[in-house]
């Protein structure tokens, strides 16, 4: 008898709670994104309120997470009904491609047809959308990463020109260090931050072709140019990084750049608005391409994907058409990246830093991706472990390539 009472109680009460779950009302679109702040927050709010005004009855609910929490959450919901209607993600095979493969992304071939999106975006931008077969995702930004530097601090250290070779780059760091200035700031707890330097060192030492073969594991990592890269990485970590970089996250590391405590930061186009939001004078900031000696720029695309499990794909497509439209992009270009993915939209003005980018884009023959977008998940985890082991002295730089290759081989 008791059991019956208790069981009825449990089921009754709990069932009542079960009903309250789920993605909200019938006409609510849930969108998962990274944390938005300052200009980016305002831009997104503008897009959402414009869309809601133009589409009576449809509401858009943006949920924000930090970078790694966002990745974890999406990996968890891949192949379930628990995900959002739309998710924002990086387009490279190691990240976006992985979720496409997991069946999370809806093939948008019909929508591209219906809205004529293929004409809206440039060819380079679309290549990351079409590379998985069909159309996956709608491009939102094409981000490039380069070295941001504090002009005052460079002058203080006696650096007169932007470095154009790797040797000059390292010499500049040495001058800064000698002048008592932290040359470059990284946050080590999020592994992908320091990774930017390592990726670029590999592109520098190995060249573009070998880089591409390495990341697809067509060639062995146990090779001198990789060893050289890890050796240089170790030097940077020991001599030129902010003290205690292994214990801070990216946001705390960026803080050092904002406050003028570090001279350089390896960031991307999104950083234009962040520096201004955090009170820096853009006239005091310069940007130069990491001097790899190759033609390629470091960067990646980011897009919005429609969840294959969404029960509102029409509304979702309507939203994505809206936010990438010429009219709306004109309003928000610059907040996320100075160059819109919509080819009709001119380069952003308003932030002097935006003007520094088009020459870099124009001079580049293409992009090399961040390696967490190139490698598979378990490879990325190991890549980061090897990288951090070298930085913390647990692994000799000369053994790093071999160590990573051993992992690749044993998990092939």
């Amino acid at each position, binding site marked *: 008898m008791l059991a019956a009472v208790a069981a009825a109680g449990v089921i009754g009460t709990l069932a009542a709670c079960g009903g309250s*779950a789920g993605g909200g009302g019938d006409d609510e679109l849930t969108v998962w994104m990274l*944390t938005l702040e300052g200009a980016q927050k305002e831009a997104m709010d503008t897009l959402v309120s414009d869309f809601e005004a133009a589409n009576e009855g449809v509401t858009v609910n943006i949920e924000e997470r930090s970078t790694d929490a966002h990745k974890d959450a999406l990996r*968890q919901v891949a192949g*379930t009904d*628990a995900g959002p209607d739309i998710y924002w993600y990086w387009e490279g095979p190691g990240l976006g491609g992985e979720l496409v493969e997991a069946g999370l992304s809806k093939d948008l071939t019909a929508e591209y047809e219906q809205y004529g999106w293929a004409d809206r975006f440039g060819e380079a931008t679309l290549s990351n959308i079409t590379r998985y077969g069909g159309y996956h995702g709608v491009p939102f930004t094409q981000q490039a990463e380069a070295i941001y530097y504090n002009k005052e601090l460079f002058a203080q250290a006696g650096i007169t020109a932007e470095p154009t070779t790797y040797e000059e780059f390292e010499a500049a760091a040495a001058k800064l260090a000698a002048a008592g200035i932290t040359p470059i700031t990284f946050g080590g707890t999020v592994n992908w931050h320091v990774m930017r330097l390592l990726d670029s060192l590999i592109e520098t030492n190995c060249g573009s072709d070998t880089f591409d073969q390495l990341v697809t594991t067509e060639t062995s990592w146990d090779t001198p140019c990789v060893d050289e890269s890890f050796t240089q990485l170790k030097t940077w970590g020991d001599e030129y990084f902010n003290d205690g970089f292994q214990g801070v996250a990216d946001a705390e590391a960026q*803080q050092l750049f904002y406050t003028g405590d570090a001279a350089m930061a390896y960031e991307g186009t999104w950083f234009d608005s962040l520096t201004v939001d955090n009170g820096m004078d853009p006239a005091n900031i310069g940007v130069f391409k990491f001097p790899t000696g190759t033609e390629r720029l470091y960067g990646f695309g980011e897009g919005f994907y429609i969840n294959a499990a969404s029960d509102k794909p029409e509304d979702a497509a309507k939203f994505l058409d809206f936010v990438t439209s010429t009219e709306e992009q004109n309003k928000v270009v610059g907040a996320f990246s100075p160059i819109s993915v919509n080819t009709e939209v001119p380069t952003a003005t308003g932030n002097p830093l935006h003007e520094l980018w088009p020459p870099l884009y124009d001079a580049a023959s293409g992009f090399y991706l961040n390696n967490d977008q190139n490698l598979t998940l378990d490879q990325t985890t190991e890549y980061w472990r090897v990288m951090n082991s070298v930085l913390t002295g647990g692994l000799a730089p000369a053994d790093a390539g071999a160590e990573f290759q051993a992992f690749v081989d044993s998990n092939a």
Partner: protein
Amino acid sequence: MSGATILANPSASGGQVAAVPAPPANRPRRDYVGIGLWISLAISALIWALPFVFMFLTSVKTNADVNTAPTWHLPSVWQWVNYADAVETGDLWVTGANSLVVAIIKVPIGLLLAAAAAYALARLRFRFSKLVLAVLVAGSMVPIQVGLGPLFTTMLSLDLLDTKLGLMLPYLAFGVPYQIFMLYGFFRAIPDELEESARLDGASTFRIFWQICLPLAKPALAALFILDFVATWNEYAIAATLLQSQDNWTVPLAVLSFSGQRATEYGPLNAFIIMSAVPVLIVYLLFQRYFVAGAFSGAVKG
């Protein structure tokens, strides 16, 4: 305070036991040992309290204050607005309400189920009841994380992912066995005569459970209520695995998210941390009497 006399023992204050000659017993004296003990306790307590002090001071500072002066300096401006900021950006009302709903429904149900099962095991001693108890308890001691991956797929196939019900079911499964273990001891200690005389008066098994055993276990139930409330409020691993949408988040998820996303907003971050712990602090302070007396006396009896 039966053991009070022994506890003036110098062994409590460190390793110098052998070096301190014990004063002759039975002679009135100033309790120097006691005073020394009190001072070392006070110092330890101060050290223990420091993190709270730092956290509070930071929570009312601007970032400029944090960056320029040591943590223990008083703020130049008392930035109480940090608390309002934290409530707003951290969605504290929503996550707090979620945690509260889960705890308020789950904890009493769990205690009832545990009491019923413990009663069956302790008083209706059927064959293998010991074995059942052992299996139940063994499972409860295994790290939760072992089953997180499959738990996720289980909830997925039951379509209970990202729901409060889907969270409460594993909470019950992981919480109840431990409570059975504790209550089992209490029910076993009830004299058989009490039950037999009730039975002679014609009381049913259910009445014996409901009107005799449960009331006797009140102190234990009160203590378990606190323990379980605190554990439920604080649970992170299962919630992080099963809850996806922010509308359903519980407080620990919000704390982690806040400290990840807004790591450099030092003031609001610390304000958020303080506020996230207020409910468990209240529960603890209200019930601490039961807690010390009831919860553990059952656990540590021989």
